[in-house]
């Protein structure tokens, strides 16, 4: 059973402290455990650290790996930058969209997968590339991408 957002914040504060420098670590912990950072968690972080709610939200909004909305159990981040763009990003993303039945920026109704684009992953030499959760996939073809996506739990 998953812990309540404020409990996660409390335990992260215990571990990382309540200084401003701990904000990102606390938020990363919440995001890792829940897949997103709910409003009450942001407020709890703000209260623990002694900054405003708006400041915590500003931090969350800056990082694309942190989210204020629930996302799928798996997150696909496919690179849309120049090299991947030239090496077939369009076909790969179309194949994934078809496989999932949702578009970029959306989550499958069963909460299995969220599909997002991202800026350069640093894998230009092995384009096109995508990140599924924490695992990079490279030299993608539409077929390969379909297979990977279909295998996600």
């Amino acid at each position: 059973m998953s812990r309540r957002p404020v409990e996660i914040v409390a335990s992260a504060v215990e571990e990382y402290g309540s200084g401003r420098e701990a904000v990102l670590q606390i938020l990363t912990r919440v995001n890792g455990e829940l897949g997103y950072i709910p409003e009450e968690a942001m407020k709890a972080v703000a209260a623990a650290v002694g900054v405003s709610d708006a400041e915590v939200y500003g931090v969350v909004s800056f990082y694309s790996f942190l989210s204020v909305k629930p996302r799928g159990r798996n997150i696909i981040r496919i690179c849309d930058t120049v090299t991947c763009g030239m090496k077939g990003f369009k076909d790969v993303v179309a194949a994934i969209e078809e496989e999932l039945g949702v578009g970029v920026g959306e989550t499958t109704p069963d909460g299995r997968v969220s599909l997002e684009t991202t800026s350069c992953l640093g894998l230009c030499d092995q384009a096109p590339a995508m990140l599924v959760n924490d695992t990079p996939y490279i030299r993608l073809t539409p077929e390969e991408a379909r297979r990977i996506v279909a295998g996600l739990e």
Partner: protein
Amino acid sequence: MPNISVTINGVTRSVREGITILEACQIAGVDIPTLCYHPDLSLAGNCRMCLVDVEGWRTLAVACVTPVTPNMKIRTHSKKVRHARRTVLKLLLASHNSNCPECERNKNCELQELAEKHNITINEFQTSPKPVSFEEASPGIMRDNSRCIMCTRCVRTCEELQSVAVIKSVGRSHRVKISTFLDRGLNEVPCTQCGQCINRCPTGALFETSEIRQVWEAIEDPEKFVVVQTAPAVRVGISEALGFSTARSTGKMVAAIRGLGVERVLDTDFTADLTIIEEGYELIDRLKRALVDGDETAVLPMTTSCSPGWIKFIEHKYPDLLPNVSSCKSPQQMFGALAKTYLAAKEGVDPANMVCVSIMPCTAKKYEKERPEMRSSGFKDVDYVLTTRELASMIQEAGIDFKELPEEKYDRWMGESTGAAVIFGVTGGVMEAALRTAYEVMTGQEVPFDGLNITPVRGMEGIREAALTFPDKMLNGYEFLAGKTLNVAVAHGLSNAERLMDKVRAGEVDYHFIEIMACTGGCLGGGGQPIPTNPEVRKKRAEAIYDEDAALHFRKSHANPEVQLLYAEFLKEPLGHKSHELLHTTYTPRN
């Protein structure tokens, strides 16, 4: 710090080590354009307008954040500098909504002024202004991010001056914007509506929620009896808003408002004096109950309640300290409640047809009048609130030649003012006015200060303290204070209020009475006052207010003859039944 030698545009001079290039240039009388810089705020260095050339440096220096070094050679308008500044301006303008005629800040916009000064007529950068996005949800403050240049002056104002911090930079890269927690409306976050962000915005991204249209409609409606009240600080701000220098202009302001076609021009000063009576007696009552009766419900220190930004702040941040706040309504709301009862009867007007308009140096007053408890006359006590800037706009629209106007007087019944009421407009003024009255009520003598000027509570220090010792001989009923010392404190700017209230909450201080104003400098620096508002301008407005006080015949609130008449004919006594019904209020804890 020792002095060092720097050369600015070929002229060598000695300056204090540690100051910035910008400060050195200001001392030298050399103008450097700035946008993100504001003398009230910390340095950001993000707009890049103030770039200067430093000999031997590979890149241009950001003047506002770069300290001078010995023998530094600075050039402020080399070809490289001019080119860079023009590029910075063009890039800012490329994403800026440059529909200037439709902007509240047209002709009073720092970006517009710089574009003109730098002769930006053609912008080779493809323009892609952000979409217009009016946010009009909150009663006091509106935002349009399409005019925002991301200088973060508002963000720093909200956090540094006010400890409110409800606006922040949100997002990243070209998607970054100034926003709130979860992008909510300012009415859904703990914004105090003080409007200090408006005063520091270099463009028109922040402005007041205007009620000019509604006021014109009321003036033109023959059924309506329009009653205007003017706050103390407006009379020293209005001339600035009309393009003149800071000046006391009470008489001309009254003439101008009358010229708009309203039925009565009256003075919030009248209810400021009334506030002093009610609040003074409330303080005496609390002192007696706390010190003599041992009544634990008599909470000290008592704080003032005139500033609606302060009230909203304490409701959000210190709900546990709400019992410390005086139950007196602000002068604006006392005025509204009396206008639609006492004045309506005096004038023989049906209060249902009366429209009560306030001219305020304040945007939080627009919020205050909407509070559900502000209907004790049976109607909405105050219908519309205009800022000093909005009044100036109406005067200009009506084609009134302000400078040539004769000085006129306020109308009767609620138009009389004392010097004590005028100084409500400056930090420390309510305290000074209260002491002038409370001391005399209890001792029968005037406050022991030369010319009634209680100088220890004056000035611009963020928090000021003073102590006033009562004589051994007090008037009947006030013997309990004989020889006792009254400890008072004054804070302005909500960050200072926070520092003070933290001490109160921790029990570290032993004050009896505290004056708090939400805005730096008090109301004269309010969010509805002319732009710019900075330390120099605040000083001039404060001088004008103290001059007005010194020039008035009555200097003490209890000497106001119309207030005396009000008590004799209507209220009967301070803190009496009618007062409680019309002039006192309650507060709401908010999270």
